[in-house]
């Protein structure tokens, strides 16, 4: 059974927000009750209370336990995020101003991330220029892409469909347009796509090479 990152993250979120909400409600309710109960009108002279050691210890210790619980949830979920399953399929992701590109093991390149349903995907991230961050909100994962270094992440495409990919680390003029998509296909459909792309790419290679030379000559001319 593979860990469910989305569920884990949402559970952590709910646990922390739940505890936080209770604390907030407690503090706010107490405060407003005191303001009402001990108003100048109702209680003209205050009582001289300067502290209480038991209380201080309690409200240091209890929150400490609570935050340790939160830490535990966060950490155990995080460990799963960082341990890609060994049967994961690897895709190389490159970020550059301002587009994402993907490269599969067999050399096929794409600007949409096609993945087969039900197979965990490990992404190897790198950057061609400045910092970017590969973010897929639907899968609750994000890792920064720093030039000169490698980073990785993994996710589990369980359902077919289209999911958003965004750049989450500011990278200049068109940062907000550095979008892409994950397309989760049934396994056999994905395999056909991969094979077809490979064939197409082989056919295109010769053409592409001449194209590159031509475009280089064009740039030189315009300069």
């Amino acid at each position, binding site marked *: 059974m593979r860990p469910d990152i989305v569920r884990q993250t949402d559970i952590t979120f709910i646990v922390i927000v739940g505890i936080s909400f209770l604390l907030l409600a407690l503090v706010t309710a107490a405060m407003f009750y005191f303001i009402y109960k001990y108003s100048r009108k109702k209680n003209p002279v205050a009582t001289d209370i300067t502290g209480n050691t038991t209380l201080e210890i309690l409200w240091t210790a209890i929150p400490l336990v609570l935050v340790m619980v939160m830490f535990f949830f966060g950490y155990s979920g995080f460990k799963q995020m960082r341990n890609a399953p060994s049967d994961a399929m690897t895709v190389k992701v490159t970020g550059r101003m301002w587009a994402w590109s993907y490269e599969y093991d067999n050399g096929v390149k794409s600007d949409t991330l096609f993945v087969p349903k039900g197979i965990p995907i490990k992404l190897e991230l790198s950057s061609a220029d400045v910092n970017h961050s590969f973010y897929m909100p639907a899968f609750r994962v994000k890792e920064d892409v720093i030039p*000169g*270094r*490698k980073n*990785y992440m993994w996710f589990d495409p369980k359902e077919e469909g289209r999911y958003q990919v965004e750049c989450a680390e500011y990278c200049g003029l068109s940062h907000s347009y550095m979008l892409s998509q994950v397309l989760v296909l049934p396994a056999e459909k994905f395999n056909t796509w991969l094979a077809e792309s490979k064939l197409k790419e082989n056919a295109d290679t010769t053409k592409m090479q001449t194209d590159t030379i031509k475009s280089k000559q064009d740039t030189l001319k315009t300069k």
Partner: protein
Amino acid sequence: MSENTHIQESSAAELQHPGYGLYILVWAGLVGLTTITVALAGFNLAGLTVVTALAIAIVKSLLVTNYFMHVRTDSPIFKVFIFVCIAIFLTMIVLTFFDLTYRFPLK
């Protein structure tokens, strides 16, 4: 809490500095340590190179702060300050190295 009781005592608290002799002695020590550290650089101490060089540098800087900068005889508050400052600096280094040491292979 002498450090708290006010301004007036400050000029009275003027510290008597030690004589020329002690300073010259400290200086001789510093020069001696410099010679040692330069000499040691000639040998191959493998992993210990950095450690010895830094240890000697730390001893030298302790000599300078304690004697030339009078920390030894000054109010203890300065020792506390220096301790806090160094402690925070060291924590910065240690925490940074928790990242560097355990990073997964980069390239």
